[in-house]
C-alpha cells in the first residue's frame, strides 16, 4: 500500500518541480524573448511562415484572432476528413484497412481537430498507419497548439497586452514547445520499450499452436504527443493500457507527467506575464486543492475494492478489474484522475470498472474543467472563475469589482456567462434526450445508476474536450457520433470565441491603480473564496446527475 502512495507522491513532486522551469520557458517563448533553441529553430520558423504566406505578424483584434482560429481549424478538419474517407486509396496502409463509415470519420475528425480525441473506433483495425501518423498525428500537434495559442492570447489580454498573432502563436507552440519536448519524450519512450515501426502486423504461432495477429506500428512518437498535447487518442483501441503504448512503470511515469506538464506550467507562465508569481502559486494551490483529494478518494476506492466482492473473499482486496496488473490500483487511480483533470483522455485502465468514488472524481473533473484543464483553455477557464469570483464577492468591498486593475463590467460578465452556460447545455441536453429513449439510442451495457454515469460521462468527456470513455457504450452509431460531435464542437469553439472576446475587452480597459481600497486577488482569503465559487457554480449544476450516478451507485454497493 505504501508503495502505491509513494508512486503517486513522487509523480506529483516531479510535476511541481517541472512547473516553474517549463512555465518560465513558455513565457520566454510567447513574450518573444530569446531562448536557447532560437539558433536552430528560427530558420525553421521562417520557412514555415513563408510556406503559409505570413509576411508580417501584426497583432490581431479579438475577431481577427477568432477568424484565424476558425478558418485554420476548418481547413485542417476538411483535409483530415478527406484523408480518412480515402484511406484505402492512400499509401502507408500495410495492414490493408478499408473504408471508414462517414459518421465515424466525421466524429473522429471533429474529435481530433478539437483536441478531444474521443474514439468510437479501434485504431489498429480501423485506421491505416498513414491516417494515424499524417492525419491524426498532424491534428494532435495543431489542436494542442491551437489551445495553447488561445490560452496565451487570453493571458495576454488579461494582462493588458494585445492578443498577439494567431499564426505566429500556432507556429511557436509547435516548434518551440510541442516538437522539442515530443522529440526527447519519444526517444525516452523508445528506450523504455515502446515500438516505432512502419512494418505491418506480426503473424505469430503461439505456444498453444494457434495463429495470433499482433498489431504494431509507429507508436512511440504518436504516444508522446498524445500525452503532452492532452490529445489522448490511442494508437490502439486499448489506449495506454496496451503494452506497446505503455509497457512499464517508467513509461507510465513519463506519460503521466507529460499529461500535466503544460497545463500546470501555464499557470506559472501567467504569473510571469502579470509579474505576480504569488498569485500564480495561489491559483496553482486551488487546482491542487481539487486534484489531490480527487486522487486520494479515487485511490482509496480502488485500494479498498468492491465491498460486495470483499464480502465473498472475506478480506479487503484492491479492485483490479479493468486494470493492468503492472500499474496496480495506485498508478491507475492517479492516471484516471490526471487524464480527466487535464482533458488528455488517454486511459491506462477501464474507467467503466472504477469504483463509484473514481467515477465521481473523474466526472467531477470533466464538469469543472479547471483542475489543470485542457491545453491552454483550462488555464483560461481558471481565470474566468477568478473573474466571476471577483464579480460576485468583490462588490462587498464597496467598489466596482476589478481584476488586475481592470473593471469587470457587463461585457466581461456576458462572455464569462457564455462559458458557464455552454457546458451544461452540451452535456445535460443530449444526455437527457439519450436517456429518454434508452432502447433506441443509448446502447448502454449496464442499466441503472452505472448506465446513467456512462451516458453523462460520454457527453461530459465530449463537451470538456477530454475524449476518454467510461466505455461500455455501444457508441459507434450515427446517433452517438453526431450528438457527441455537436457536444464537442460546442464545448470547443463557443468558449474559445468567448474567451478571446473577454480577453480583448479586458485588454482595452484603462487599468485602475492599486490602493488599499482595491480588493487584492492574490491573497489566501480570496483564493479560498474562488475555490468555493468554483464549487458552487461548477458543481451544483451537476449535483443531481452526480447524485443519481456515482453517488447512488456507491450507496447501492455499500448500503
Amino acid at each position, binding site marked *: 500500500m505504501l508503495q502505491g502512495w509513494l508512486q503517486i507522491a513522487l509523480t506529483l513532486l516531479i510535476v511541481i518541480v517541472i512547473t516553474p522551469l517549463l512555465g518560465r520557458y513558455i513565457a520566454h517563448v510567447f513574450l518573444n524573448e530569446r531562448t536557447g533553441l532560437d539558433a536552430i529553430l528560427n530558420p525553421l520558423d521562417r520557412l514555415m511562415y513563408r510556406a503559409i504566406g505570413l509576411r508580417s505578424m501584426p497583432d490581431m483584434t479579438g475577431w481577427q484572432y477568432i477568424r484565424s482560429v476558425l478558418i485554420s481549424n476548418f481547413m485542417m478538419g476538411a483535409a483530415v476528413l478527406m484523408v480518412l474517407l480515402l484511406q484505402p486509396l492512400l499509401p502507408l496502409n500495410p495492414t490493408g484497412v478499408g473504408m471508414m463509415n462517414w459518421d465515424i470519420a466525421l466524429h473522429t475528425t471533429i474529435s481530433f481537430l478539437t483536441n478531444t480525441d474521443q474514439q468510437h473506433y479501434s485504431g489498429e483495425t480501423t485506421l491505416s498507419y498513414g491516417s494515424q501518423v499524417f492525419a491524426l498525428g498532424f491534428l494532435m500537434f495543431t489542436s494542442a497548439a491551437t489551445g495553447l495559442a488561445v490560452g496565451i492570447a487570453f493571458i495576454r489580454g488579461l494582462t493588458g497586452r494585445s492578443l498577439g498573432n494567431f499564426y505566429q502563436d500556432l507556429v511557436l507552440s509547435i516548434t518551440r514547445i510541442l516538437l522539442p519536448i515530443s522529440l526527447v519524450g519519444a526517444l525516452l519512450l523508445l528506450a523504455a520499450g515502446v515500438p516505432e515501426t512502419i512494418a505491418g502486423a506480426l503473424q505469430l504461432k503461439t505456444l498453444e499452436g494457434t495463429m495470433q495477429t499482433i498489431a504494431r506500428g509507429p507508436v512511440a512518437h504518436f504516444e508522446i504527443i498524445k500525452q503532452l498535447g492532452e490529445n489522448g487518442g490511442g494508437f490502439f483501441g486499448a489506449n495506454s493500457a496496451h503494452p506497446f503504448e505503455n509497457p512499464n512503470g517508467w513509461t507510465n511515469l513519463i506519460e503521466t507527467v507529460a499529461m500535466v506538464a503544460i497545463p500546470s506550467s501555464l499557470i506559472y507562465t501567467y504569473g510571469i506575464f502579470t509579474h505576480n508569481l504569488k498569485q500564480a502559486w495561489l491559483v496553482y494551490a486551488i487546482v491542487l486543492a481539487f486534484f489531490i483529494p480527487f486522487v486520494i478518494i479515487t485511490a482509496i476506492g480502488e485500494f479498498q475494492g468492491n465491498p460486495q466482492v470483499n464480502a465473498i473473499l472475506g478480506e479487503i482486496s484492491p479492485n483490479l478489474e479493468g486494470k493492468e496488473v503492472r500499474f496496480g490500483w495506485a498508478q491507475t487511480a492517479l492516471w484516471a484522475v490526471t487524464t480527466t483533470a487535464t482533458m488528455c483522455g488517454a486511459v491506462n485502465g477501464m474507467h467503466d470498472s472504477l469504483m463509484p468514488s473514481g467515477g465521481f472524481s473523474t466526472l467531477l473533473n470533466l464538469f469543472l474543467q479547471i483542475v489543470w484543464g485542457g491545453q491552454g483553455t483550462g488555464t483560461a477557464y481558471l481565470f474566468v472563475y477568478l473573474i*466571476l469570483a471577483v*464579480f*460576485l*464577492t468583490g*462588490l*462587498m*468591498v*464597496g*467598489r*466596482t469589482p476589478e481584476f488586475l486593475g481592470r473593471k*469587470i*463590467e*457587463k461585457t*466581461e*460578465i*456576458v462572455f464569462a456567462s457564455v462559458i*458557464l*452556460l455552454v457546458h*451544461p*447545455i452540451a452535456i*445535460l*441536453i443530449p*444526455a*437527457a*434526450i439519450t*436517456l*429518454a429513449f*434508452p432502447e433506441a439510442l443509448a446502447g448502454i451495457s449496464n442499466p*441503472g*445508476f452505472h448506465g*446513467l454515469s456512462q451516458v453523462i460521462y460520454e457527453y461530459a468527456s465530449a463537451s470538456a474536450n477530454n475524449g476518454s470513455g467510461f466505455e461500455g457504450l455501444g457508441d459507434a452509431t450515427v446517433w452517438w457520433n453526431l450528438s457527441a460531435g455537436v457536444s464537442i464542437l460546442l464545448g470547443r469553439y463557443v468558449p474559445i470565441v468567448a474567451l478571446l472576446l473577454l480577453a480583448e475587452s479586458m485588454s482595452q480597459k484603462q*487599468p*485602475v*491603480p492599486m*490602493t*488599499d*481600497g*482595491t*480588493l*487584492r486577488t492574490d*491573497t489566501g*482569503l*480570496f483564493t479560498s*473564496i474562488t475555490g*468555493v465559487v468554483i464549487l*458552487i*457554480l461548477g458543481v*451544483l*449544476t*451537476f*449535483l*443531481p*446527475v452526480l*447524485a*443519481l450516478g456515482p*453517488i*447512488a451507485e456507491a*450507496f*447501492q454497493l455499500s*448500503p
Partner: protein
Amino acid sequence: MDTKSRSSRQAKAKAASQGLYQRAMKESVLKLDPRVQIRNPVMFLVWIGTIVTALLTINPSLFGPPPDQNPLLFNGLVTLILLFTLLFANFAEAVAEGRGKAQADSLRATQSDSLARKLAQDGTIQEISSTALRKGDVIKVIAGDVIPVDGEVTQGVASVDESAITGESAPVLKQPGTDIASSVTGGTRILSDELTIRVTSDPGKGFIDRMIALVEGAERSKTPNEIALTVLLAVLTQVFLIVIATLSPIANYVNSPVSITVLVSLLVALIPTTIGGLLSAIGIAGMDRVAQFNVIATSGRAVEACGDINTLVLDKTGTITLGNRLAEAFIPVNGYSVKDIAQVALDSSIFDETPEGKSIVSLAERLGVVVTIDRSASDGIDFSARTRMSGTDLPDGTHVRKGAVDAVKGFVRSRGGSIPAELDAEYEHISGLGGTPLAVCQNNDIYGIIYLKDIIKPGIKERFDQLRRMGIRTIMLTGDNRITASVIAREAGVDDFIAEATPEDKIEVIRAEQAKGKLVAMTGDGTNDAPALAQANVGVAMNSGTQAAKEAANMVDLDSDPTKLIDIVTIGKQLLITRGALTTFSIANDIAKYFAIIPAIFAGAGIGKLNVMGLASTQSAVLSALIYNALIIPALIPLALKGVKFRPLTANQLLGRNILIYGLGGVIAPFIAIKALDIIVAAVGLA
C-alpha cells in the same frame, strides 16, 4: 444643515410610513402583472412556476399521473408559497419606491401651478401661468411669492426661504452679480423685497422636477453594475433551468420519477430569487439614502461611481478649514511694542466687516487697546484683489494699511520707507506655522505682522485617516503660499496639496489623476468651477453655488457642506456592499437548499443517507426549503433598504468581514432555518 433639522425630517418620514406599508401591500398585488414581472427574469420564472403549480392544483393529473402523495394539498401549498415569494419581492420594491414617493410628494407640494409676473421686453408686466415660462424669460417676484422656476437673480436684493428644499430654516440673502447668492430655485419662497429673475430652465426640467423624478425612481435606469449583475443572475437562472428541464428523463431512467411540482419547487429554490427579488429595492434605497443626506444625484450611475472614487480634490477653505481665519497674534518689528502694532492694526480694521477684520479688532481689544480715532471723519479702504490691502485713511492724512506682505512692502516703498530685515523672517515663521501673515503699516513705517490662523475643522484629520484606510487619496487646493499650504496639509492629514492654486489648476489636477486611471471627486460652487465639476467623475455642486456649477455637476448638495463629499463616497460604497452581500448570501444559500431537496426527492434511489439534515419526508423537505426561500426575502428587506453598515477598513479587511457574515452565514443559516421549518411543517401535519 444642522443635525436637528435633518432628524426632524426623518421623524416626519417615519410618521408617514404607516400609510406607506399599506400602499406597498396594494402595490405588491398590482405588480403581479406579467408585464411588470417580465422586467426581472428571475422573478418572472417564479411567476411562470406559480401558474404551472396552480394549474396542477386544479388538476393534479394534468401532465400525467402524479407520483406524489396527496397531490392536491401539496400542489396547493407549493402554489401558495410561490405566490408569497412573488408578493414579498414585489413588496420590497414597492416599499423602496414608496419611500421615494413620499419624499417626492412633499417636494411636489411646493410646486403648485402659480401665476408668474413675466417682464416683457418693453418693461410691462404680464401675468402668465408659471408652466408657460421658458428658459430666458425674465420674471419679477415680490415678498410672499413662491419663486416659480429656477433662475438667476439679475436685479434686487431679497431674503429667500429655501427650507422646502434644504430643510434649513434661516433665510438666505439673494442678490445679483455674486457667484454664490445669485441663483434661486423654483419652489422656494421670497420673504422680503423683490427680485428680477432670468429663468434658467424650461418647465418640468427644473431642479425640483429632476429631484422628484429621481427620488421617485420613475426615471431610474439600471446602473452599469446592476446590469452586469442582472446578466449573471439571468445566466445562473438559465443554467438551473437546464438542470431542471433535463432532470425528468434522467430521473425516469433510474426509476426515480419526480413530479412537475417538485421540479418547479427545486427550480425556484435554486435560482437566485433572494437577490433577484431585492435587487431593484437595493438600488432605489441607495438613491433614497443619498436624498436623505440632502444630496441630489442626477443619476444612480453617479452614486455608484462614488464607491469607486480614488481621489478627492478638496478646497481648503470651507472643507478642510473653517471658512474664517482668525487673528492669533501681533508680531511687532522695527522695535515697536505689541501694543503699538495692535493699535495700528485696530485702526486699519475698524471699517473691516470681514470675519478676519472683526477678529483683529477683538484681539486688539483683548490686549487693552481702544479706538481713539474719529470714525465719522475717517474713510475705510476696502480690500480689492488688485491692491490686496485694506485699511483706513484718517482725517489727519495718516494712512494705515494691512494686507499681503509684499503688497504692504510695495506701499511702504512707494512712500520712501524701508523694509526691516526681520519682517521676512517673521513672514516665513508664520507661514511655517501654517498661518497667514498680514503686514501692518502706518504711512511708510512697517509696524509688524498679524498672524491669522487657519482653524482646521475638528475631526477632519480622523476622516482623512479613514479615507486613507479605504484607499482614497485627498488633494487639497488652496490659494495660500506653499509654506502655509504645506503646514495645513500636514496638520489636516491630506495626502497632497496644490498651493497658490487657480481654478485652472483644479481641472489640471483632475486630468492628471484621471490619466493615471483614477476616478476623481470634487466639490465646487463658482462658475469657474464648472469645467472642473464636469471633468470630475463625481462633481458635487453646492446648492448655494451658481447655476452653471449645478448644471455641470452630477450631484448637488442642498446643505452646501463640502465636507459631505466624504459621506457621499461612503453611501456609494454602502450601496455596492449591500448588493454584493445579498448576492453572496443568496448564492451561498443554494448549498443548503440542494442538500435539503435532492436527497429527499431521490430517496427512492437509495441516497437517503445524504439527508444530513434528517428532514421528515420528501414533501416536508421541499416545502421547508420553499418556505425558507420565500421568508428570507421579507427578512432581508430592512437590510436592503438600510444598507449594510460600512466601516472604513481596507478592502481585504472588508472582504474578510463580509464573507464571514454573508458568505459563511449564507451557507449555514439555511441549514438551521430549513431544519426548524421542517420540524414545524411535520408537526403541523402539512406533509
